[in-house]
């Protein structure tokens, strides 16, 4: 098989088109958000557990910050 410049160019274009098509997923419409609204789709499905985890984290690390709470990093909590 001879890889002529035209064939190579066509294949290149096809590849670019295929890669771009991968980005062309239709956005989720407002009425299609039922599954996304489920409790188990949240980052923190259980707020109480999230608060406890967060407290454990900053107590162990001896610092706060980067998780939204203010603190001096004295590790005295």
């Amino acid at each position, binding site marked *: 098989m001879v890889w002529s410049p035209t064939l190579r160019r066509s294949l290149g274009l096809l590849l670019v088109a295929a890669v771009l098509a991968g980005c062309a997923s239709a956005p989720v*419409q*407002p*009425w299609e*958000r*039922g*599954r996304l*609204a489920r409790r188990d789709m949240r980052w923190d499905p259980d707020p109480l557990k999230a608060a406890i985890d967060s407290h454990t984290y900053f107590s162990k690390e001896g610092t706060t910050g980067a998780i939204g709470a203010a603190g001096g990093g004295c590790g005295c909590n």
Partner: protein
Amino acid sequence: MKIANALAAALLAASAAAGAVEPGTAAPAFRLPTFDSAQPVALADFRGKVVFVDFWASWCSPCRQSLPLYDKLRENYPAADFAILAIGLDEDTAEAKAFLAEHPVKYTTLQNPQGDVAKAFDLKGMPSSYLIDRSGIVRARHVGFEAKDIAALKKEIDGLVANAAP
């Protein structure tokens, strides 16, 4: 260059086809089954009345507040003048039915699990509602819901109900 022109024309055509339902345009026709019976109900059956079309879902938290308030609002008007059509968009109809059992309403509740009517109205958010005059023209569109919106909505309905049928 020719290809670029053809692409631009195709893009323009696609954007023109996806026109949202704005105030002043005719409401898209629909025919949907109710939650209570298999008998379908069409928007055209209500021609001559002011119709409030509300799109809701069991997972839409403002809908917990809006459905009961719309039910109270409806009591202000005779059935000959005003109707509410609430279109449930849950993919799982059982979830919508459970929601209605928890928040019962007296107005017509329709099911559209496929969401094709929502697509025809091109909803911009949930919940969305449309106020349609006696001749089938959309007069107001609302996206989202807060309890304080009811007073303004009542004024809009009063204005449309006061106009006699054409």
